[in-house]
Structures are given as structure tokens and as C-alpha cells.
């Protein structure tokens, strides 16, 4: 056991943690933006809207994140059509490839979470809104969505944690995230135990922050649904 080596390389881990946090936060935000229209399309009565959304969600939930990352990073790098296109500067960077893969992946899962929450909206809330004479659009904006978002919170906190941990695959395409830092330290000093335990502690600390954040959010927005004591 030699944790002194870890202390000397702590800077590498901090840099890695920064990369992980940036990558995960950005893909969560973009994924959420994508997920809402996807969820609405998925529920649409029009098959031209429903089927593309269904296929998208099926493909990205049906394949491992690692495979998606490999296809985007190594796969696209092999296609001349993409290498010649204006998109290449984007796909050239490992960072953007990872961001794209994570965003597309989390969008699929989040869309399903939102769809589930929308579909389980208590019928009474909708009836009350109709009784007030609200239009479809008004009901959707004022009742359905806010209510669904609140109830989606606990499930969404799981997705956030899953993506945080899933982001460990970024190290494979040369990014130095937390896991990437651990791999460098391990390969330099051949100390897998110390190197990866440290990475684990970083992930646990980040997970703790996520849990704490969602607890605050749930207290604020789900308070009214809790049993009164």
C-alpha cells in the first residue's frame, strides 16, 4: 500500500474529475433538452412522430454505451464521407465524440422516464383542469408537464448517477477523466489497488453531491406529495 504516490498525483485526479463533471453535466443538460420532445413524440397518435422516437429510444437503450462511443469515435473516423465533411473538426476531438455519445444515450433513457411520468398523471388533475376550461396546450404546459417533471425526479436521479458512472468509458478514447487518471497512475506505478480505489472515492464523492442535490429538489417540489406527519 502506498497512497503517497496518489497524493503526489492528486492533481491528475482533480483534472480528471473536472473533465468528468464537465462532460456529464453538459450531456445531461443537452440530453434533457432532447428528451422532452422525444417523450412527447413517443406518445403521439401520429405514427410518423411516434415510430422515429420509438426507434431512437430502442436503439440507444438496446446497445451498450461503450459500443455507441466506439461507433462514434473509431467508426466515424474511418468514413471518408465524414472525414471530408465540415463535421470532421467536431468528430476529430475525443471530447466531442464522448459528449455526443453520452447526450444521445441519456436522452433515450430520460425520454422514457418523462413518458412514464406523463402517462401516470392522476386523471383527477386533468379533469380539474378541463373543468376550468383550459385548452389542450394549457393543460400540457400548466398541469401535465410540471406534474410529470416533479414525479420523474427520483427516477431521473438514478439516470444521473448511471451516466456519471457510465462516463468511465471516456478514458478508453484517450480522454483523461477520473478513470483515465487512474489508468495513467496505474500504468506508471503498477499500483492498481491504490489507483482505482482513489478513482472510486472520487466517484462516490460526486455521487454524494448528486444525491444531496436531488434530495433538496425533491423536498422543494415533491414536498406536497409526502405523507404529513
Amino acid at each position, binding site marked *: 500500500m502506498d497512497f503517497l504516490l496518489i497524493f503526489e498525483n492528486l492533481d491528475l485526479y482533480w483534472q480528471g474529475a473536472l473533465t468528468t463533471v464537465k462532460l456529464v453535466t453538459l450531456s445531461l443538460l443537452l440530453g434533457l433538452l432532447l428528451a422532452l420532445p422525444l417523450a412527447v413524440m413517443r406518445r403521439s397518435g401520429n405514427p410518423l412522430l411516434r415510430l422515429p422516437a420509438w426507434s431512437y429510444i430502442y436503439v440507444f437503450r438496446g446497445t451498450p454505451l461503450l459500443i455507441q462511443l466506439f461507433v462514434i469515435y*473509431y467508426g466515424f*473516423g*474511418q468514413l471518408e464521407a465524414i*472525414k471530408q465533411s465540415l463535421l*470532421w473538426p467536431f468528430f*476529430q*476531438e*475525443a471530447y466531442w465524440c464522448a459528449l455526443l455519445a453520452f447526450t444521445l444515450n441519456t436522452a433515450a433513457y430520460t425520454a422514457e422516464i418523462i413518458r412514464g411520468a406523463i402517462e401516470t398523471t392522476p386523471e383527477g388533475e386533468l379533469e380539474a383542469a378541463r373543468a376550468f376550461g383550459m385548452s389542450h396546450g394549457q393543460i400540457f404546459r400548466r398541469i401535465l408537464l410540471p406534474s410529470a417533471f416533479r414525479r420523474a425526479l427520483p427516477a431521473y436521479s438514478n439516470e444521473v448517477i448511471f451516466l456519471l458512472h457510465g462516463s468511465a468509458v471516456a478514458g*478508453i478514447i*484517450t480522454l483523461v477523466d477520473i478513470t483515465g487518471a487512474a*489508468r*495513467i497512475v*496505474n*500504468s*506508471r506505478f*503498477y499500483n*492498481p489497488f491504490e489507483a482505482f480505489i482513489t478513482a472510486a472515492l472520487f466517484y462516490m464523492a460526486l455521487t454524494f453531491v448528486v444525491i444531496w442535490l436531488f434530495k433538496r429538489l425533491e423536498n422543494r417540489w415533491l414536498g406536497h406529495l409526502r405523507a404529513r406527519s
Partner: protein
Amino acid sequence: MKKLLAVITAAAAFSAANVSAKEWNEIRIGVEGAYPPYSWITPSGELAGFDIDIANALCEEMQAKCKLVAQDWDGMIPALMTRKFDAIVASMSITEERKQKVDFTDKYYQVASRFVVKKGQDFDFSAAGLDGKKIGVQRASTQDKYVTANFPGAEIKRYGAQDDAFLDLKAGRVDLVISNIPAVKKGLLEKDGGDRYQLVGPMITDREWFGEGVGIAIRKNSPTLREKFNNAIQAIRANGVYQRIQDKYFDFDIYGG
């Protein structure tokens, strides 16, 4: 209770004696599988290459039953230390740094390393000449340590396997890749589209980073195994088996001077 303890102690002593007198009739060997021409996986899924043939030839010479275990490069030494296998035959250079963790046999070959770039590009290989350039390298390799120490201003991208570094050179994500020369030839130059790339810069054999050649790594304190491997290397050098394997892969003397 005392009796039980005595039995346990006796059993422990017996098994300890057993370990130290291990005759190494069965040896598990860690190999790589993504480092042609030294090791690669054939389309039918089998391991092939110089390292693989050498490992098999040594085992035959030692009359040991060998099991080859494919392992990613950067987990190689940790896997040896945690007894996932007993020896590494994977083009591992004998360096001072690695010697602190593992023992090495005598070398079984020695070659130089060089940079490879896209044709038509010029680079200045002085210490500051590669500042800001992207260098692809296999993580935890001697070349990784060499560029990390000598080109601090360069952006170094580290890959789990050499083949992935070549892929990114082709994709234009890195400007240069450094590897040992036969690996560059087999893994890039002799493949489809390889004529667009060329070896450049000095032949690099710096002892400080590249050590005294490539050897077989084994756990510390296993002198018997080391002795066996050393004798086997000498034997296949003498009886022509080494020459035959070398001729399969190289048109020059890879054992080195």
C-alpha cells in the same frame, strides 16, 4: 485443539515446501494480441505472431504445458503480480522502472523505436520542436515514458492498444505515433493505405527508457522459472528454432547485438 493446530501447521509447511519446489510443469503466460507482428488475433480468433511463436517454442523446449492468456497491455504487470499468469511474453522492454516490480529473463530481441507520420509533413525533433503536437502512444509502454519525459510541451494521447493509436493517426486525430519499427511496418505501413505514412526522425534506442532489450517478465523471487526461461532462450537460439521463427516475421536480425 493442539492436535488440530499441529495438523494445520504441518499442512501449511507441506504446501509451502511444495510451492518452493514447484517444477513449473504448467506455466500460464500473459500475451497481448493487438501488437502485430509480435502478437495479434487471427480472423479465426486465434493468437498469432512472433511473441506467440516464441512463447510456444520456449514451452516446448522446457517441456512445460503452457496456457496463453490474452491481456490488455496496461494491466500486464499488475496481472502478473496478482498471479493471473506466471510470465509475460509480450515484447516488454527490460527497464529499471519495471525491474522494481518484476524480474526479467535475458533479452529475446531488441529493436529501435521511431516516429511515424503522414507523408509530406515535417517535424523538428528537438525538445521544444514538438510543442503543441499530438503524439499517439501506447499507454504504459517504454515509448509512453520516453515521450512523456522528452516532449513535455506535446499533447500526448495514450491508447490501450497500439492498433488504436494507428487508427487515430489515419483519422488525423494525432500528428505522430511512436512505436518500435517492426510494429509500425506491420501494423500500419504494410496495411491498406499504409503507403501514405512514413517513418521519420532518429532511431531511438536510448538505454534510459528502452533498457537492454525485450525480455520475459516474471514475478520476483522465482529464480527457478527464470533459470528455465534463460536456458530455453539459449537453447532455441542454438538449435535454429529462433532463426526459423524470426524468418517468418522479419527480414533482418531481430535479436540485435
